[in-house]
């Protein structure tokens, strides 16, 4: 029966024509998707790619006949296997969701109901819609868990969402989408929240299962290298319009539009390596732990040369940010010390002098939450000018203007609130706030992770220019190897609170690698549709060779 329902591979499954979707903000409706067409065949995977605000997710949800609160499907036609979703009633559309069309969300941790066991959620729609009886659906779910290479597949379903890791949850969610054996799955940035090493495993298992059951999929992401591994065809979106459509190989080898090329723009920054002998900061055999828990930092020693950029890389939980907290005095080390300009810094923030505080500044990942939403740019940048430098009145305003111009904005921005700035502009204001203190060392904690590629590029170029002009030293915490390649002189690789490797960029990024560095570097997706296949084959070969 299911073979009949599934139809033949190559038949058109979904056809969306001239889709217009409005979003409500500032008391009126704006077009957020402006006439996009999508044609998807059975068993085909389409990549939807673009920056935030391009309308990718909205379009993906529209394929399910769904609009988020505050959005409306204004015009166009959505034909799903002969059913007109624009004309179908809410109940008819609901009947398709969770049976013939399924969805995999970005944040698995937030998208699972905390109150129910994973297997209950996996089989929920399958059982409720009468596709399979409960016991059959559950044993099928366990089989899917096994197919997706989840650990302990027979029992992991009995656990609650908070009891398993993010990467595992994302795979359980894929199993949940696959459980009713849908014709179409919408993957909405399913690996964006994961570490690169986890991302590879999740990508591989998602690709395998989509192929195995011949399911069509729309894969939404902002990362072209990731989508290249998954998709047969790619559609590039910007501001709700199609920029370019092509099959994956020709898109990568020969992108037609400037905008498509710019999507991997961070990868085009090159920084000549610099080696300074003058050590500005030394983290000297530091241990640290949060109250009552195990060591988060274990004998960490890092030397930071003056005027250079040291990138600290590693997965989440590797101790990157904790190292920053130990340096700034937010988390006093339980052992060891931090030397600044050759002199030990007091362990806690309170014991440090204003002068010591002034010399080390920090920029955070989420510019949004790092600024008081009720303060204007003038307050935000003016505060360190008064506090550290004692500038007042005209002097202060003069310096304020200089700083704003230094970060390539102008005086129009001085009286704006953070909400009136774009993501990239907010991060620039945070950079200006750090510069206002006239520091020697700036710690950048994932400062570009929340930004789009083009904006990332602008921020990184700004940081490089400021470094050259002002002789700043950076500690750059990131999990993105492309950023590391673009900006660093030295690299520190961390794993489980320890420094695995430390050295010049050219040394770390060239073989021979220690095992972990190799795993980390090889997990970064490349702009090559065969990269994942090749990587998995290579890992399988090595696995069998060592076994």
């Amino acid at each position, binding site marked *: 029966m299911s073979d009949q329902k599934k139809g033949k591979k190559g038949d058109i499954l979904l056809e969306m024509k001239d889709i217009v979707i409005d979003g409500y903000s500032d008391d009126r409706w704006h077009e957020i998707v402006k006439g996009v067409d999508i044609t998807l065949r059975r068993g085909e995977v389409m990549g939807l790619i673009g920056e935030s605000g391009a309308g990718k997710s909205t379009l993906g*949800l529209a394929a*399910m006949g*769904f609009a*988020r609160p505050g959005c409306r499907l204004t015009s166009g036609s959505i034909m799903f296997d002969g059913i007109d979703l624009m004309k179908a009633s809410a109940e008819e559309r*609901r*009947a*398709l*969701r*969770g*049976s013939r069309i*399924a*969805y995999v*969300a970005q*944040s698995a941790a*937030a*998208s*699972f*109901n*905390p*109150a*129910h066991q994973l297997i209950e959620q996996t089989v*929920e*729609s399958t059982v*409720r*819609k009468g596709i399979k009886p409960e016991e059959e659906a559950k044993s099928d779910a366990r089989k899917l868990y096994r197919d997706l290479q989840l650990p302990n597949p027979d029992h992991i379903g009995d*656990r*609650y969402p*908070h*009891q398993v890791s993010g990467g595992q949850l994302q795979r359980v969610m894929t199993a*949940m989408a696959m459980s009713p054996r849908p014709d179409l799955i919408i993957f909405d940035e399913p690996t964006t929240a994961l570490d690169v090493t986890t991302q590879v495993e999740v990508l591989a298992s998602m690709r395998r299962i989509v192929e195995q059951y011949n399911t069509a999929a729309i894969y939404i992401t902002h990362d072209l290298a990731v989508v290249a591994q998954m998709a047969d065809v790619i559609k590039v979106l910007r501001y709700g319009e199609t920029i370019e459509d092509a099959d994956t190989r020709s898109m990568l080898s020969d992108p037609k539009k400037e905008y498509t090329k710019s999507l991997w723009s961070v990868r085009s920054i090159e920084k000549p390596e610099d080696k300074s002998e003058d050590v500005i900061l030394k983290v000297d055999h530091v241990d640290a732990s949060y109250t009552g828990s195990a060591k988060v930092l274990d004998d960490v020693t890092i030397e930071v040369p003056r005027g250079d950029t040291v990138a600290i890389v590693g997965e989440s939980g590797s101790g990157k940010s904790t190292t920053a907290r130990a340096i700034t005095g937010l988390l006093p080390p339980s052992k060891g010390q931090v030397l600044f300009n050759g002199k030990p810094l007091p362990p806690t923030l309170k014991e440090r002098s204003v002068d010591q505080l002034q010399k080390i500044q920090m920029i955070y990942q989420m510019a949004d939450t790092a600024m008081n939403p009720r303060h204007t740019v003038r307050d935000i940048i003016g505060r360190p000018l008064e506090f550290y430098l004692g500038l007042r009145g005209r002097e202060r305003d003069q310096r304020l203007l200089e700083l704003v111009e230094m970060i390539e904005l102008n005086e129009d921005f001085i009286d704006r609130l953070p909400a009136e700035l774009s993501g990239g502009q907010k991060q620039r204001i945070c950079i200006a706030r750090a510069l206002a203190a006239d520091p020697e060392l700036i710690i950048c904690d994932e400062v570009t992770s929340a930004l789009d590629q083009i904006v990332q590029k602008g921020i990184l170029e700004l940081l490089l220019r400021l470094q050259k002009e002002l002789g700043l030293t950076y500690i750059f915490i990131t999990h993105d190897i492309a950023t590391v390649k673009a900006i660093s002189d030295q690299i520190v690789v961390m794993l489980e609170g320890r420094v695995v490797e430390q050295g010049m960029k050219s040394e770390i990024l060239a073989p021979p690698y220690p095992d972990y560095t190799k795993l980390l570097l090889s997990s970064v997706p490349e702009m090559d549709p065969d990269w994942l296949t090749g990587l998995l084959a290579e890992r399988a070969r090595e696995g069998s060779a060592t076994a």
Partner: protein
Amino acid sequence: MHPVIRTILQRLGLGLVTLFVVSLILFSSIEFLPGDFGEAVLGQAALPETVEAFRKELGLHLPMHERYFDWLGGILTGDMGNSFSGRGSSGGQDRSRPVIELLAPRLANTLFLASMAAIISVPLALFLGITAALYRNTIYDRTVNALTLTTISFPEFFVAYLLILGLSSFTKIFPSLANIDPDAVFWERVYLTALPALTLTLVIVAHMMRMTRAAIINLMASPYIEMADLKGASKSEIILRHALPNAWAPIVTVIAFNLAYLVVGVVVVEVVFVYPGVGQLMVDAVTTRDVPVVQGCAMIFAATYILLNLFADIISIITNPRLLHPR
């Protein structure tokens, strides 16, 4: 030990400490009240020697801490002391009764009324709250909100008299007086307490209903609710299966608060319906300065609050899978 059991034991211990602190505050604050039981009973014209003899008989001449520990020790063994009233002040027969004996039937009445009101109001509030969330911003939702707000906005005695007017004076469905006697059988009690229970229901249902509605609606913006929607769950499935299990903690807190109110705050309703509950007993005891009875009532009220809040805490813990199923 399972962390949930440990947490519950901790809360229980904390509750006992709170009760102890309450007893201390209670005892000392009554101590510092102006006026004196002896003078109040014997009148201002009484001779100082008479008053002194009277105080001695009641044990009031002993130092405060001795009386406190005596009283506390009594409570721990189930003896709350004897009422001041009914004592033979000058050689007459001692007809004073133990506080427990006075309190027990009154407490039984109060708990009976509170249970009746709770049995009607809690399911009603949950039903109204859930359906209001389900049909959010419809006429139904607005009507339910407006009606419950209206009943909570009137003073209790006003609601009570309206009910008497409607259901007793005009239609003669229920009696207007709820002066039940100790021998009344169960159904007779239910019949007699119907109006006070209904009054209390109208007074407390709004608070619980609105919290239920708010707690559910608060969760409706969660990603897992959108996920349930995208899995094709129906509106009622979304609310009952996906939102409600995560909304219990705030709802139960408000329910416990209102149930406590049913026990300790119903004196006005008791007076209107001439219902022999603890509230009336306490008010009477305050006017006659019958300190042991006041203290006994107050301790019961405190224990009610603490127990019900403990109960709410426990429900919050066991409906939170992060606590119930630690990693």
